[in-house]
């Protein structure tokens, strides 16, 4: 019975703490400032990463940078107030769809968020879809 009370009170406290955190604020959604910024992040997490061509999403919430000479794809995505990176091979992308200027990516890695890239033009979305699927 005491254990049940502890669990219930803890659950209520958690809800209250999250509410307090949201009410107080004090954080800002993260952004990828530039492709250089994305490359720095990738080099921090993958020491030998050599940046090649890349593209920054229009809303600066994500970036793709290809790794020179390996065919691997460097990803930087905003997650809350932090950035998350991955260095993956094309077969780790489970779904890729271009819809006008938006490229939607899904990954086999269930710990990496599905990511949408909004580009300046529809041709950019189609071009990067082709590059990421190895069609070009």
């Amino acid at each position, binding site marked *: 019975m005491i254990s049940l009370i502890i669990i219930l009170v803890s*659950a209520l406290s958690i809800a209250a703490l*999250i509410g307090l*955190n*949201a009410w107080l604020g004090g954080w800002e959604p993260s952004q990828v400032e530039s492709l250089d910024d994305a490359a720095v992040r990738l080099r921090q997490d993958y*020491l030998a990463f050599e940046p090649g061509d890349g593209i920054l999403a229009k809303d600066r919430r994500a970036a793709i940078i290809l790794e020179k000479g390996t065919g691997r794809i460097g990803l930087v995505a905003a997650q*809350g107030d932090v950035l998350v990176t991955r260095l993956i091979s094309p077969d780790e992308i489970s779904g890729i769809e271009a819809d006008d200027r938006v490229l939607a990516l899904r990954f086999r890695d*269930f710990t990496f968020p599905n990511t949408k890239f909004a580009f300046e033009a529809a041709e950019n979305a189609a071009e990067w879809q082709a590059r990421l699927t190895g069609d070009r």
Partner: protein
Amino acid sequence: MPDLPDPIQYAIPFFIVLIIAELIYARQTGKAKFEPRDSGASLVMGLGNTIAGIVFAAVGATWLAFLVPYALFDLGWAWYVWIVCFVLDDFVYYWSHRFAHTVRWFWADHVTHHSSQHYNLTTALRQPWFNIFTLKFIWFGAWMILLGFPPAMVAFCGGLNLIYQFWIHTEVIKRLPAPVEAVMNTPSHHRVHHATNPVYLDRNYAGVFIIWDRMFGTFQAELDEEPCRYGIIRNLGTYNPLRIAVHEWWGIVKDVRSAKSFRHALAYIFAPPGWSPDGSRLTTRVIKKQAGVEKPVRTLKATPPDAAPAE
């Protein structure tokens, strides 16, 4: 034998008050970072850990009771036995924690605690749910009982150890007076432990006393020129507590399924995290070697090849 309570249950109200205080202080000064979904994930992980503890408590208790008849001594309940028990329990914690970082089977469980890129008091409560499956209580829980410490005393000291570790998960406190930093695990020492900068990886495993790291060559001081970046090598892009709890276990399953030999399968389970047969992934040791920080350093600006552990 006295009927001792679980000290962690009594500490929960203090945890909540301190988190509120840190939240307000963070908002006013900017000296700590909170994000509601990250905080929520950490707190829910803590609640899940508590529930798992209640559900599986009988398993650990049965194991400890089974060991009692085989104890070498009967050390009793004298006050000085308590002190020795607390210190030795912390020594066992050091090694248990060290293995939790260097053997993937144990890391799959412990990675949960390191999976936030934030470092605040809620991070302290981001704890695993499937601790029981590591069978760690068999390997590491036995020594104290076999020496002759009463199981209830060992469990109580273990609880005190975890309570101590709560308050060191903060960026609010920079450094404490030198004598404290020399002996005790502090926020500064533990920030290093949670950081992914190559120089900080796999350092400062201490629970309460930092002396174990100093004795066994795993101590690294926090460097002013190298701010800590928190999290894990492959940071998580999810706040889903279940995904956080199982992601490394699932990684092991996938790797073992793809293993080309029994030896590789075993290595995927028991080798250090990041091991792969072709070296395409990096272990901490390789990362530190690539970055030229295999040994603890005093400074990153001019590291002599034979640098001694920093004080």
